[in-house]
């Protein structure tokens, strides 16, 4: 009996178009992606139709879903000035290693007393830090002192930046140089808890605040 020959088709497929597409997408996502520095808490902000984009230069207080406060100081120089001012005010000291650690930290949240332990902890440990959050109660409010020092530091920094810009003969953009005060509150937290933070701002006569939100379509109504 003659053998029936089955034509052998090659099992390989031409993958070139698929690879092309994959790399195209990789390139797209790589260029479009923007990375945020890691934060000690995840916060889901509410949405708004505002079209103003969150600036880099900001003083931000994050309020997580438990109402704990975290502070973000955008400018690294101002951060150095702030911590030194606050430490002097509270009469506490940090080792140079701990200070170095703090300078690199954009967002932090703990009481001044807990700072050494907080700074020593690793990033994942910080996320599980029990006494996280800057005290902002009306009877014991550390946040107000942080805000006061941070705003002073940021203003000093703005003055230097303005002088530098003028020296170079540029017209400085005041909006960019002066930091925005931003509140980044979780949508689920009760407003009363956010109000405590806002009152800390109001106590030192800063009332022009901004809420961080995610964008939404203007025609949409909320359910």
């Amino acid at each position: 009996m003659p053998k029936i020959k089955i034509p052998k088709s090659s099992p390989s497929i031409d993958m070139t178009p698929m690879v092309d597409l994959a790399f195209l997408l990789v390139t797209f996502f790589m260029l479009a992606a923007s990375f945020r520095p890691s934060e000690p808490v995840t916060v889901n902000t509410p949405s708004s139709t505002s079209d103003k984009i969150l600036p880099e230069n900001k003083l931000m207080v994050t309020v997580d879903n438990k109402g704990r406060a975290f502070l973000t100081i955008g400018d690294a120089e101002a951060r150095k000035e702030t911590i030194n001012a606050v430490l002097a005010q509270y009469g506490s000291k940090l080792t140079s290693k701990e200070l170095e650690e703090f300078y690199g930290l954009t967002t932090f949240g703990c009481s001044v007393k807990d700072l050494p332990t907080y700074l020593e902890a690793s990033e994942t440990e910080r996320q599980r830090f029990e006494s996280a959050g800057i005290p902002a109660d009306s009877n014991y409010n550390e946040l107000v002192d942080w805000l006061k020092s941070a705003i002073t530091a940021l203003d000093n920094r703005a003055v230097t930046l303005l002088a530098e810009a003028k020296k170079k003969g540029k017209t400085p953009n005041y909006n960019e140089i002066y930091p925005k005060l931003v509140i980044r509150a979780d949508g689920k937290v009760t407003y009363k808890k956010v109000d405590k933070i806002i009152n800390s701002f109001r106590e030192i006569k800063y009332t022009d605040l901004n809420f961080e939100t995610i964008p939404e379509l203007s025609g949409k109504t909320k359910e």
Partner: protein
Amino acid sequence: MAEMAESGGGHKEGKKRAKKSSTRVDMTPMVDLAFLLLTFFVLTSTFSKPRIMRLAYPAKNEDKESEAPKVKNGITFLLSKDKIFFYTGEFFSASKPGPNGPTTLKATDFSANGVRKLLSELNMYVLQKKEGLAKKVQMKQLADTTFLRLMDEAKVQPDALKVLVKTDDKATCKNFVDLVDELKIAEIGVIAPVEMMPEELELLKQNNK
């Protein structure tokens, strides 16, 4: 698996061919890597940049309980969890009723026919002005900066709606931001987030059951 070596397919013995090396390269590892990167970037990237919504708070006056300024066209929103109550004009408690008796609360919601419709009716003055000015801008009779300045002026006129926002213990931050956003959509210039009075809280509790 670029090419499987084909053997036995009709080659006659003795005939020797120069071995053709395949021009194809094994792309599998590269594809693996490409997809790995793709997955990574898809999962980590955030597209929408966060926005900020400006809200000016009244300055804190410690020494005196600041009396609410008299406004011609005012509305007060009392915000509870996912619910909005409001009354227009001044507040009259049950013990001190005004000309139309004590204040009663009306309820509304975040739907298109709720608070948005209400605000667009009450703030007709500013919205109509905006429409007229926007038309002028379109016909190039008005510069953009002038438009913004005139809008800011219109928002503080006596006829423009002024809003007080008061929250109870249960209202979430989302409720608050949503309401303020609705106020911004309705072009309301004077938004004052203030503390709730005890009488108002009592009234809100009666309504919010």
